């Protein structure tokens, strides 16, 4: 008895060791999932990327040859360029639509709940489903957009929206905005709602007009929310695949092949699994780098409110 009592009174190692074990026990399920579905696949992919790894037949160790090959792979570089273009345009377009929408549905007005729901609705549709829907909408003959333009007399012949790069690119951007903007809007909305109303009132008394309040209060106070929405949007755009695969199958003149699409082609069309794996590792590195930069932006001037 006394021994136990003395031991337990000592703030020593036995207790802290047992609480460390308990901590491990708590995070074990999450750790197991992360290890099983992220760490192990990454390691396997990294291992594969150092091989010439055909789908059938023996794999062969080739060291970093896959990575060297990449540098001179014009198709990979053009896929990177296209993905970059798409990411910039899509992100700007999504924000340009989502921010005004967020400002619109933030105010308490009649039917605001209905507006929020309607604008958010496309988000719950799967991206592949949405792509298929828009393939139909963009169809020359039996679709909606082209025939509508013709009916309205704006064009003479119903245009094939997915036939030229510009029109197809525009169609895909519009589809993605329609699909994603509602989600970004909700994120931005939470940021807007987190701004205390009395700060806005204080600014009104201080004589700040609507635009000045937006510029000097809303934007700075929403920095973190905007950063979050930005990371989600950028990451999503860099990993874009479904819409190009389903809507344009790589697009007119193969100009719409995103990086993920190219990885898919290399791995599962050409069966260069090793090369595909090395491309995946590079893409992962790019995403990590971008996320680090964005997280750093997120922390700039970290202030306690």
């Amino acid at each position: 008895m006394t021994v136990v009592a003395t031991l337990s009174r000592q703030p020593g190692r036995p207790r802290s060791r047992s609480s460390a074990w308990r901590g491990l026990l708590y995070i074990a399920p999450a750790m197991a999932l992360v290890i099983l579905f992220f760490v192990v696949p990454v390691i396997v992919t990294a291992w594969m990327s150092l091989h010439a790894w055909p789908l059938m037949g023996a794999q062969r160790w080739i060291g970093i040859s896959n990575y060297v090959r990449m540098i001179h792979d014009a198709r990979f570089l053009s896929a990177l360029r296209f993905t970059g273009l798409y990411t910039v345009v899509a992100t700007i377009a999504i924000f340009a639509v989502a921010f005004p929408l967020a400002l619109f549905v933030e105010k308490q007005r009649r039917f605001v709940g209905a507006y929020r729901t309607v604008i958010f609705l496309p988000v719950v549709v799967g991206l592949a489903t949405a792509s298929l829907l828009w393939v139909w909408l963009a169809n020359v003959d039996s679709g909606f957009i082209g025939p509508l333009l013709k009916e309205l007399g704006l064009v003479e012949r119903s245009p094939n929206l997915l036939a030229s790069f510009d029109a197809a690119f525009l169609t895909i951007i519009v589809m993605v905005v329609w699909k994603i903007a509602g989600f970004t809007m909700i994120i931005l909305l939470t940021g807007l709602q987190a701004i205390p109303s009395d700060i806005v009132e204080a600014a009104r008394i201080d004589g700040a007009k609507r635009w000045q309040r937006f510029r000097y209060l809303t934007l700075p106070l929403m920095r973190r929310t905007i950063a979050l929405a930005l990371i989600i949007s950028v990451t999503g755009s860099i990993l874009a695949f479904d819409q190009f695969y389903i809507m344009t199958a790589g697009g007119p003149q193969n100009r719409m092949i995103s990086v993920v699409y190219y990885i898919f082609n290399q791995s599962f069309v050409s069966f260069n699994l090793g090369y595909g794996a090395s491309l995946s590792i590079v893409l992962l590195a790019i995403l990590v780098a971008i996320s680090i930069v964005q997280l750093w932006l997120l922390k700039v001037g970290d202030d306690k409110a």
Partner: protein
Amino acid sequence: MSVAQDTRSPVVSARPTGGPEGREGAATGGVRLSGVRKSFGSLDIIHGIDLTIPEGAFTVFVGPSGCGKSTLLRMIAGLEEVTDGIIAIKDRDVTDLDPSDRGIAMVFQSYALYPHMSVRDNLAFGLKMASTPKEEIERRVAAASAILKTDHLLDRRPGQLSGGQRQRVAIGRAIVRKPDVFLFDEPLSNLDAELRVSMRIEIARLHRELGNTMIYVTHDQTEAMTLADVIVVLREGRIEQVGSPREIYENPSNSFVAGFIGSPRMNLLKARQEGRNLGLADATLVAPFAAAARASGTEVTFGIRPEHLSVGHEKIEGRSLEVVVDFSEYLGGTQYLYCQLSDGQAITVEYRSPVPVKPGDRIILSWAPDWIRLFDPAGMRLRADEA
């Protein structure tokens, strides 16, 4: 306007008997509300308020929560729309003006500082919005922070300040704008008790130095009593009484005001008119003034403050009551005895004598008839001349 200003000393140092003077005064440079109403949909919050606040007066709106005092203040600030009526500041109709054009500045309960700006930028923000020249901004920011002794905080963010410092900055932000009227919306409620007292003194000092009209909303009657030149007691969107703290305390115009102002509250006991006397519990008391006009048996509320009751052991005919002590609160300088009358009504007594009193003791309470306040069943004050 300037004439009105000249008739008053620029700095109001002595307490004007602001209440009655203000209500009658026609051309004041202060704040005038006439027939001001506010409704949210079909729900009326403010039911037609007429009030004149003389220039330079420190006016306190006080009332229980939900009485509309904050809403009224926000209407003066221009943050709430006025459903009906007119608000004038310095004889200028501001009812539909933007908050920034009304010549007001407001201090919020939550301070409402801009969290991403330094104290300096917080103070300068209003001037910056008004495109004030840089040197002027610097001069006024320096002047305001000198008054509030916040110079050493200018480069910090609000998040790095204590509650008291934040409130100083918030007040500084108001001073910088050089408003005609300062509006305070429960500015001390978020501070701890000790800071509250020192900030209260600070605000009083500020009013003495600047001499501006100030309107202050609080539910804390100590703040109301200590700061105010004029107290406006509100209940359910109506003014119950306007007057100096002394008037309100000594001459409440109804039982609500009597019970609301003063701590512990005034004892309001149910009594009956019995001829020329009052029946209270099993005792017959001498009415403080002739009440012959009132029919016997009418209910009357007998009000007396705890500090006006004295504890003794001898009955004085018609001016004393026998009670049983329930329990007591010892506060050092004084002691509150919570007692019961023979019919179960509770009565609180302030007791200063060192002679100990135990729960269960029977004591005799007596008073000077001048301290009795009588109210009719509707709560309205009964006065000698009316009876």
